[in-house]
């Protein structure tokens, strides 16, 4: 297994600096998963830290790599939602009012070594950004065994999850999780998926309904977009380089590599693997 992010490239290869970000338009679940996989392979080939930010159209439920499909089927409030299985772990996420990211870190970079470093870097940068905007945020320090089996990602509390103080007293956890991530450790590269919840989804109630960043930002603390821009800049700073926002290949809907990879994520075999 890839524990250390061991790279196929030369051990003397320089650690990449800077952050390349692709901001993609909303796309369907299979395409999004395939584009992230292509992102990971490009990161490995070019020895760059690459990040993809995107939305979902139509709104879609994504399951963790090993979640049971029957648990989705039995969740009645989701019965009419499109569904896709992620290559990364964790719980189910209802996409539509979130900002999803895929971050690929090549094996030559220190962040690829061990699970915690990458969480600390990505989530820590957002904790800092939110702190600068007077929002009390922190990373969860230990995994909550009692929430580990929850179907929804945002009902789980595991180490590294980003939570904000529950000033309204409405959360049974005493806090609101607004950013959750999970990794797929591939040969030569680590792909980290994450979902930053922006707003509560108006189409959901009950267990699947969660507070988002925009719901807890105070007046005068800037917009959700301001927070995201600040977060990306802090991430680039942690990578000791420039923040380069560019158009990625996933904009090109005729992209053959992504289309080929999409077939797998749209297949019944992949969705029902468990």
């Amino acid at each position, binding site marked *: *297994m*890839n*524990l250390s992010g*061991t790279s196929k490239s030369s051990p003397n290869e320089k650690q990449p600096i800077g952050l390349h970000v692709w901001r993609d338009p909303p796309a369907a679940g299979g395409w999004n998963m395939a584009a992230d996989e292509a992102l990971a392979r490009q990161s490995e080939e070019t020895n760059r830290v690459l990040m993809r930010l995107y939305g979902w159209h139509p709104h879609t439920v994504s399951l*963790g*790599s*090993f979640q049971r499909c029957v648990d989705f089927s039995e969740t009645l409030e989701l019965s009419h939602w499109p569904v896709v299985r992620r*290559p*990364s*772990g*964790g719980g189910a996420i209802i996409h539509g009012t979130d900002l999803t990211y895929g971050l690929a870190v090549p094996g030559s970079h220190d962040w690829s070594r*061990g*699970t915690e470093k990458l*969480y600390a870097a990505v989530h820590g940068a957002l904790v800092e950004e939110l702190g600068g905007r007077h929002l009390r945020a922190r990373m969860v320090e230990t*995994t909550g065994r009692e929430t*580990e089996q929850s179907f929804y990602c945002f009902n789980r509390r*595991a*180490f*590294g999850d980003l939570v904000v103080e529950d000033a309204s007293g409405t959360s049974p956890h005493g806090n609101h999780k607004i950013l959750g*991530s*999970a*990794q*797929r*450790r*591939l*040969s030569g590269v680590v792909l980290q998926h994450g979902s930053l919840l922006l707003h509560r989804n108006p189409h959901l109630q009950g267990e699947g309904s969660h507070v988002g960043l925009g719901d807890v930002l105070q007046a005068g603390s800037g917009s959700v977009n301001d927070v995201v821009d600040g977060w990306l800049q802090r991430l680039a700073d942690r990578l000791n380089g420039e923040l380069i926002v560019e158009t990625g290949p996933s904009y090109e809907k005729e992209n053959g590599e992504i289309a080929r990879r999409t077939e797998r994520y749209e297949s019944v075999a992949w969705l029902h693997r468990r």
Partner: protein
Amino acid sequence: MEKSRRYAKSHEWARLEDDGSVTVGISAYAVEALTDLVFMQLPDVGATVTAGESFGEIESVKAVSDLYAPISGKVVAANTELPSQLETLGSDPYGSGWVIRIQPDSVEQLEALMNQEAYDKLIGG
């Protein structure tokens, strides 16, 4: 061929058995590094595995990782009790925490893997 454990860079171990099969598992170092294991997927008996390619997956609370075959061959046994007793990987990684047994295409493949001393060096022991 020496029957002590050999190791892949990807932290799987391999040991030649008396019947010519090779038992494969995950090193104690790797199990400790993964932490909080929650699920494991094994290959079917009869499946063909290729050295350096994925033969299964393991999920911890925050990451899914591939398991890579240290040698090529055919899977002749899988420890099917393991996915429901993942703690065994930590308590007895070189015994009852074995993962699969492979009938190797050739036992010489084991020579390409690291011995204990080289592996200890890799993990900084």
